[in-house]
């Protein structure tokens, strides 16, 4: 990244032009596939959001319009800066630009007016909003009307249930906007792992006959993640919606959430407070025929899952499923930017909304 240069708003394009003029002599190409508006509060999660933006830029250059809102002070404050973001790929000669806006107090009302002239024409506008939009309603509503895609972070909501209600309502009111959730995207590897294991009709029938499904989720908190049960709730919601199970009741025993479907299939969401957040350490599926499917993350290699399948007649040799690093690959970027609203996502939200 070319270090941030603080400038007055009226000079943004002019200063960017000068930077690009000098970079052109170094054969750097300016490229943008879309406009990406990012809004975050000035807090400890801000760095994590910047990492997500960088991972998007790595795959798809775009114009980043990054708003950092300091809502802890009532003092009016508006500062703009520009920078150039490079792809880390070796020898890459592509770069894109970032316009950063730091704002507080009532100056936040100026932000939409400040941003509008800087949207690159003819390119879609995506909104990455990892804060609760209900809390920052005024700004969100004004920017939402430009967006063709909105990416939330359900962590910022009071609960995933509140998020489900809100997003389902939004998707009904704004059918032309695509919606996504960072937490849903992070769960992709586990969904793939389960889908790959139960690929065949025979295996799928076994999954349909599940008696208990234990999800051991990582529950330690860090600065960026606080509601670690979100992904576990998503996982059970996804599986039950895909397999057509009907919610019977939910309960909590000690720290374990127990969710019953079809009166005889039980999900147990078991927290593990010693594990880093944002993942599961293991999933154990036991069928009514006492077949067991164990999916255990390897301690030393967190991107690998050891899968053991035991039936009444035989124990298959354990094998490894390689999950890959979702943040490194193109998957995160694709999901955040190109794919339409996931049907599975909406169906899972619907399931959660009914619980």
């Amino acid at each position, binding site marked *: 990244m070319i270090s941030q240069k603080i400038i007055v708003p009226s000079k943004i394009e002019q200063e960017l032009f000068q930077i690009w003029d000098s970079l052109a002599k170094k054969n750097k190409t300016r490229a943008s596939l879309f406009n990406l508006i990012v809004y975050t509060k000035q807090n400890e999660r801000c760095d994590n959001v910047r990492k997500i933006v960088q991972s998007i830029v790595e795959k798809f250059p775009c114009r980043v319009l990054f708003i950092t809102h300091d809502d802890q002070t009532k003092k009016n404050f508006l500062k703009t800066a520009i920078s150039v973001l490079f792809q880390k790929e070796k020898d890459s000669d*592509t770069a894109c630009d970032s316009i950063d806006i730091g704002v507080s107090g009532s100056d936040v009302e100026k932000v939409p007016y400040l941003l509008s002239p800087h949207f690159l024409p003819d390119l879609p506008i995506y909104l990455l909003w990892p804060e609760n939009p209900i809390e920052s309603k005024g700004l969100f509503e004004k920017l939402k009307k430009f967006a063709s895609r909105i990416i939330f972070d359900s962590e910022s909501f009071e609960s995933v249930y509140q998020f489900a209600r809100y997003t389902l309502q939004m998707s009904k009111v704004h059918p032309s906007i695509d919606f996504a959730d960072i937490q849903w995207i992070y769960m992709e590897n586990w969904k793939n792992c389960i889908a790959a294991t139960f690929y065949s009709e025979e295996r799928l029938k076994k999954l349909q006959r599940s008696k208990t499904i234990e999800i051991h989720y990582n529950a330690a908190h860090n600065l960026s993640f606080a509601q670690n049960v979100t992904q576990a709730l998503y996982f059970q919601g996804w599986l039950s919606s895909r397999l057509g199970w009907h919610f019977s009741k939910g309960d909590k025993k000690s720290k374990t959430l127990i969710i019953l479907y079809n009166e005889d299939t039980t999900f147990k969401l078991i927290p593990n407070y010693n594990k880093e957040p944002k993942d599961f350490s293991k999933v154990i599926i036991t069928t009514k025929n006492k077949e067991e499917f164990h999916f255990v993350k390897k301690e030393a290699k967190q991107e690998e899952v050891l899968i053991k399948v035991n039936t009444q007649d035989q124990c298959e040799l354990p094998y490894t499923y390689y999950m890959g690093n979702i943040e490194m690959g193109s998957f995160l970027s694709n999901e955040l930017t190109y794919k339409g609203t996931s049907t599975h996502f909406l169906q899972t939200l619907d399931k959660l909304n009914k619980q």
Partner: protein
Amino acid sequence: MNAHPLEEEGRSTRSIDPCIVVIFGATGDLTARKLMPAIYNLARESLLPANFGCVGFARRPKSHDEFREEMKKQVSDHSRVKPIEENIWSNFHEKLFYHQSEFDKDEGYEKLKGFLGELDAKLGTKGNRIFYLSVQPKFFPLIIEMLSKHGLIYKENENNWSRVIIEKPFGKDWKSSMDLQNHIQKFITEEQTYRIDHYLGKETVQNLLVFRFANSIFESIWNYKHIDHVQITVAEDLGIGNRGEFFEEEGLLRDIVQNHMMQLLSIVAMEPPIDLSAKGIRDEKVKVLQSIRPLSKNDFQNNLVRGQYGKGFIEGEQVKAYRQEEEVDKSSNIETFVALKLYLDNWRWTGVPFYLRGAKRLPKKVTEIAIIFKDAPGLLFKHHNSKNDPNVLAIRIQPDEGISMKMNCKVPGPSSPVQPVKMDFRYGAYFGKTPPEAYERLILECILGDSTLFARADEVEQSWKIFTPILEYWSKNPPKNFPNYPSGSWGPKEADDLMARDNRNWRIP
């Protein structure tokens, strides 16, 4: 077929059948440079099935571990993403195996059958097989027959499937390709046969379909009314390297023109398919090949040029002539340059010449399709009393993949001189410089059972129908002036003359 309830169409969650890929010719150059790096990168991108194995089949004795070590080195050297990721490799290498046998020994196939059975039990690969024939073409019929004889290939059924990937060249001419086809179809069906042309796996070739059929502005001008002519260039700056023996048998027409260039021409000229299925696309491509006007004797003399490189300079370094290359006859008449003019007798392309130029030892490596549009009517803006440059849409397949458009523009100032300028879209600028290798895509498509990016029997047959008469004419009329172009030039004078007769020039891509 109903979608799997746990996967969502258009997203990455795809249930890929478990399988074992058996590579015949596992100690060969293609396996080392392309196939193994491709399979490793599929693993790196989490695109392989969870239950997967890969068995190298070759004649040299070797242990599993020796094979794994060799492949690790090759992947380290040739993978598009470097360095090799140790954690991925350590998982991947457990799925790599080696099987030593001669191609013609029953015992070797019987042992292979037993070994694959063991792997099925160990890896959960369910009896699904891909046999990749990366061997000399003379072994294709033998291996397929042996695989069938020993029950290693079988028709797709509810429980498992087996498929065969066949490297090019598929035959040496129309008759030999038909003989090969007639032989293999006794043992495998067309649905099981995946004839590889790695050009079809290139992202930019696939983008041609998107470019043509997802942008409404081009389709309306993509015809004889607006297009003056089309030039397709496949140029290599390299010579034949250590492929002397192979090239003496094949020549450039068989190596590049009959397959790669015909695929490019088919996609550029095809009608919109009814859908994106393998059948939909391949039906339209075959129609293009069927519409190519057969070359007459007059065409052989005036619209067809062959050449062979002499010594010359590439990037300032002196390089030797073709006849001085290893394993090449000192008086060889094999062509390393081909230029020809073709016409498509169909509604869309009537009267539009397609100029094809493929060669070794040209000044640079470039594959490009150039659409040259007709002149604007009248001469409102004269440029040095001559007409303006035509608009050119150039589609660069490799390297520096992208699309550029040449148009005319006013030079600032009180007079109105016209200057051609170029609008350039560079694929790498938007989507990164390391797109998946063609072989990655093709192997994955075969695992998924999608044959869209593979050549169908009738495509191959039709292409040979066009080029076999040329081969026959050349064999009866040996060249008198070989070598006829210096290395590092754009080819023999006769190729320029071919264009000059039509008042046109070759582009310098």
